[in-house]
């Protein structure tokens, strides 16, 4: 009878030993998360701050506290990438650098990111289960954003007529405004179909979103992602004071925003071209094309499954 003997494969042993050595060396070379001193930290009620500290600070602040396994390769590379990206989006330690209007938009976006379980990132929650946000904590965040000044903003200013409009006709005397993304303003949307009408109570505005024929047809045919040539225009007004019957009417015109589908031209922003024209004189928004990245970032976080469109009619 032959004795069964475990015979280690020399080649296998050599490879495993090398791998272990390389791994140990990598641990010494992994990126170090550097915590800069924090100035201008976010100033919110303590119950809100406690939630942000527990669930968001590891990535969206200068006070990251990686645990031992975050520091292991290759996790440390992923973690440091997430932290760099997260801080570039918004940094709760350098919050005061952000203009107040934008701070409010971000706070509402944060609530939505949590409500839709997009944040904290699931790969982070898998190893930091304590960072999960409970329904009662989400309610605290919601209560807080509802106290922000934009929530109850009423437009009491006298309504200025646009210099572009006279007797219902558009007069473009100073030339057509063009966005840096290559989208020119045009009022042809006025003969498109209204896709939706909204009360954006987070910022005290009301909106009408139009869709062109390609867009409306795609919705009727349940065609998502939307085909090239689909376009939407969103017109934004302030809200006047509510009357005795409860009616709220549009106040001043604030801006008009375009989304134009061209999967080749706008590949870097998921196939959608963005444009925004501000105020009655329709000043194109955005100093560099990078502004469109901030547009798609929010649309991508929350409505990627709707081809990045919020205003679609759904049951």
């Amino acid at each position, binding site marked *: 009878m032959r004795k069964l003997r475990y015979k280690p494969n020399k080649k296998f042993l050599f490879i495993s030993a090398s791998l272990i050595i390389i791994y140990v060396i990598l641990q010494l070379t992994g990126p170090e998360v550097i915590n800069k001193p924090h100035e201008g930290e976010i100033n919110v009620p303590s119950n809100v701050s406690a939630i942000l500290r527990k669930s968001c600070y590891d990535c969206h602040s200068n006070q990251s506290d990686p645990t031992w396994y975050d520091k292991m390769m290759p996790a440390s590379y992923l973690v440091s990438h997430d932290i760099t990206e997260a801080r570039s989006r918004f940094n709760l330690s350098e919050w005061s650098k952000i203009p107040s209007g934008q701070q409010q938009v971000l706070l*509402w976006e944060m609530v*939505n990111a949590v*409500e*839709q379980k997009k944040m904290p990132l699931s790969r982070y929650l898998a190893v930091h289960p304590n960072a999960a946000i409970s329904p009662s904590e989400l309610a605290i965040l*919601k209560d807080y*954003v509802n106290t922000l000044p934009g929530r109850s903003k009423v437009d009491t200013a006298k*309504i*200025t*007529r*646009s210099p*572009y*409009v006279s*007797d*219902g006709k*558009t007069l473009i005397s100073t030339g057509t405004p063009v966005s840096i993304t290559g989208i020119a303003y045009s*009022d042809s949307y*006025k*003969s498109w*179909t*209204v*896709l*939706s*009408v*909204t*009360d*954006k*109570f987070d*910022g005290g505005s*009301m909106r*009408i979103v139009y869709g062109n024929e390609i867009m*409306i047809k795609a*919705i*009727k045919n*349940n065609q*998502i992602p939307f085909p090239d040539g689909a376009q939407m225009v969103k*017109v934004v*007004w302030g809200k006047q004071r*509510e009357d005795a*019957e*409860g*009616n*709220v*009417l*549009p106040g*001043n*015109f604030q801006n*008009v925003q375009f989304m134009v589908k061209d999967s080749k031209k706008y590949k870097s922003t998921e196939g959608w071209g963005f444009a925004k*024209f501000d105020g*009655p004189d*329709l000043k194109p928004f955005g100093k560099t094309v990078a502004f469109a990245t901030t547009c798609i970032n929010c649309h991508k976080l*929350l*409505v990627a*499954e*709707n081809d990045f469109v*919020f*205003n*679609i*009619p*759904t*049951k």
Partner: protein
Amino acid sequence: MIALFPALLSCSSKKTPELAPEYIFNDPNLKVISSVINRKEGTIAVIYGNTPAVNTANDATGEHVDGEEFKMVTWKLKPMPNWYGTDMNGRMLSVETVDISKKTGENIVFKYHYEPAVKQESHVKTRDSSKRVAFIVGLPAAVMP
């Protein structure tokens, strides 16, 4: 335990939206005049008009002319599914129409018609039609460049 897994997976998989194109109002002869939010009634509306109606609504001193047509389309206000912070139109509730005729030497006539989106269903108990007409035809156009 193993049997539970497919169930869990199907719960977590992304839902593609169920589109409701029937909520869209379309009349190629009409353009937007303005919109109205009413949180007391839980509704949101768009007032449309034909060219003479739009012109009058854009002119603060304008008097109504023969042939103006107004339509006020009212939807139920509902939370936007993917954004807490915005409410949007849900299903359509009603279409109110005002047709104006003004023949020379005769008085101006406003013809009012209320059409619920679902037959035998009115979203308002009582409608004072003369009040509704005054409201609909009196709205100044929202500023649109």
